[in-house]
């Protein structure tokens, strides 16, 4: 039952990373249980809730449905890397904090990664409907999404200021 372990080489949050992984391990399992990056969450393990959303080469991916070996040579960013990239606290994270967009906080890392991918893609202020569409794959049970949408719109405006 034990398949041969492979050496996975990729970039995680800007750092070259080499980790031995079994081929059936998901990216989420490797991030959480081998690399101790606990920010990405498991809410369903079936690609429904979006709490495990990370970015692979800047594109949002469900880490629970991505085999770890599939990110060989690629660049993985988790919520831990989002802040590091901005030198501490990313404007999106700051906006989520100010707007109280994180209540229980469990969906927050995944939502931040999906929202950041949207803002990086469009590079301009976004509308509430654009945010709704971009976050349609990320479930939140606490907020009713209102403050999440406000926070993303606010961050997009701040990021677009010269």
């Amino acid at each position, binding site marked *: 039952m034990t398949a041969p372990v492979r050496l996975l080489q990729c970039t995680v949050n800007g750092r070259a990373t080499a980790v031995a992984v079994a081929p059936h391990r998901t990216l989420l399992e490797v991030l*959480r249980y081998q690399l101790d990056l*606990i*920010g*990405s*969450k*498991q*809410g*369903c*393990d*079936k690609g*429904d*809730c979006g*709490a495990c959303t990370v970015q692979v080469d800047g594109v949002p991916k469900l880490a629970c449905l991505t085999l770890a070996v599939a990110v060989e040579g690629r660049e993985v960013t*988790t*919520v*831990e890397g989002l*802040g590091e990239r901005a030198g501490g*606290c990313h404007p999106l*994270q*700051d906006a*989520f*904090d*100010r*707007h*109280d*967009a*994180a*209540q*229980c*906080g*469990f*969906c*927050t*890392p995944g939502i*931040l990664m999906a929202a950041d991918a949207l803002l990086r893609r469009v590079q301009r202020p976004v509308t*509430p409907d654009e*945010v*709704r*569409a971009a*976050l*349609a*794959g*990320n*479930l*939140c*049970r*606490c*907020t*009713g*999404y*209102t*403050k*999440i*949408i406000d926070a993303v719109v606010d961050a997009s405006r701040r990021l677009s200021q010269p």
Partner: protein
Amino acid sequence: MQDGFVGRSVPRREGHDKVTGATAYVDDLSLPGMWHGVTVRSPVARARLLGVELGEGVPWHEFAIVGPDDLPGPNVVKLIDTDQPLLAADEIRHCDEPVLLLAHPDRAMAERGRAAVRLRLEPLPAVTSLDDALRGDVVVWGRDNVFREYRTAKGDVDAALADPDVVVVEGVYETGAQEQMYIEPQGMIAQFDAERGVTVRGSLQCPYYVHAALVALFQLPPQQVRVIQTATGGGFGGKEEYPSVIAAHAAVLARKAGHPVKLIYDRVEDVRATTKRHPSRTHHRTAVRRDGTLVAMDIDFIIDGGAYLTLSPVVLSRGAIHSAGPYRCEHVRIRARAIATSHPPHGAFRGFGAPQSVFALERHLDVIAARLGLDPAALRRKNLLQPGEQTAVGQVVREPIALDRVLDRALALSHWHERRAAHEAFNRSTDGPLRRGIGVATFMHGAGFTGAGEVHLASVAQVQAERDGTLTVLAASTEIGQGTNTVFAQIVADAAGLPLSRVRVGQPDTAVVPDSGPTVASRTTMVVGTLLRRATASLRQTLRDAGLLPAGTGPVDPEVFTQAVARYLADHEQLRGEARYEPPPGIAWDEKAFRGDAYASYAWAAYVADVTVDLRTAEVRVDDFVAVQEVGRVVNPVLAAGQIEGGVAQAIGWALFEQVVYRDGRVANPQMTNYIIPTAVDTPPIRVEFMPPFLGDDAPSKGIGELPMDGPAPAILAAVQHATGAVPTAIPMLPEQLAQVLQEAQS
């Protein structure tokens, strides 16, 4: 206190850790030598358990295995009754009931073990609907499948219904089960040590519920059982009573294994095995004058409690008390029953019975309005409770309530009259498939435990002064996303006259904090917040009495405070203020007669939903939602609005998307793939407004957590009725159900 922190939207205490991903939830923790636990469950609703077989090909000697005979104490989940076992021993009473526990150092191997266990079962007839339970052909509880019945009456309902001058309107309204669907699944980590006892960490709302369950199971002195709440990814009532089961399971596995054991449910297991909102059926028979004046209400309220009694009596009680709403009515009779079935036990979920009975009444009022040709808002306004009048259970409203103002504000914000007219004009003229409608619900929600519940709880909260001049909040109330930490810090900072930064709120740990009661029933800010204010005042008084602090209740120079504390602690071991719950004067509840002061205070609200119905697909889209409420003084407006917005979204889900499909008593859609909660695309803009407190700016705060669950479902269905003319009476109302209602309305 003008310059205080109460009333201001200070940022969430743990906000930074949550947005950076640093917050550690239970599955983010690991203890040295930790094993992984799994639960073997029944695949059928009811059966005699003849035996358990461990299958081939699994190294069973590596496992810790716990059955009913391996428990250190009584095989009981400690709640109201003792009918529910921790592990089914002879008879299986519901699907996914725990039968056997396994733990192994390797998570995957633990799963292999679970799959290899075979249960020898002799099927027994199950009761999988309210009708079957009431018919009583198969009895699964007591003599008649009735867990609990409450009756209360005032006036002469029969005479009023027989009055020739009234119109009698009858209706039956149903609500379905609802899954809490917190995004973090349930989980616990337990440690056992023969000398030090049991320590459990996990995702939970009520540390002392878990504590009591473990003390009873392990038969240990209370100080040898320690329960620590980890950051909790949502609860909504789902982590009120069930965590006691998981904690007990993890703890007996840890005892058997001699290792810490982590027991985390995956989503499917969580949805199948843990509690949900009680399904309900309400029969209304109402006498009303042609001008809309309510004369008599005859209400029969039934909830499906599932296979064990759990918390159903209290859910029933709250539902019954709310079943006649915030309306004046001279003659009211309420019969309420919690019924036993073979479903997994239904349990606590935000609103706790009130959303079910409020849905029925509000729906019924729209049916009455349509029958009499009255505007639904006008019908409500005519009957709203006034100060000095009595609720259905005889509670005199002492507050100077002005519900008409709450309703007016909601109607103004939603442009009720203009939109109502515009929608009707649109619906008359359109050839297309879309219909528009607007609906309203007015309601109240009692905060805190029902009846004498708070007196029995006798909650305690403390504030401790540290040598560095900071204050530590000692309370068992948990932060589960709703903002407990922040609100407590605001309240204590103001009472102490100190900056917010001088107040610390720790993670509840029964080794450190007193029992301030469970984090339920919208009671945290209202009840425990008040205790903390009193505890802080008492701490200040101690320093004043010692001549270390000047008199007064206003701001204190933090340096002066720090010196005062330092001097006090030079002579004393510690400095704490403590407060214990005392009921407000003149409050009395008669449980036998089911009459009296049911709650110390009520929040009042009027919600309006604006919808579009697509007649082709029978889909309902909520376009706009207005939520206006009076909740006393709002401690933190942004956090409070967050509670309302989240509750409204959950209630939209309950009304339109969330259907628990039971097939032969088992949840057939236990995933987020097929149990649909609202996404960002499904949730409308939610416009929240808090009315100035009826008692003025210094009014006490009322509970708000559950309130927003009550109003949206009836408001949305009222809007669908306005849009289509059809009269839906049941939720969830998925397109399949609405299509049927529309078809029946046509024929």
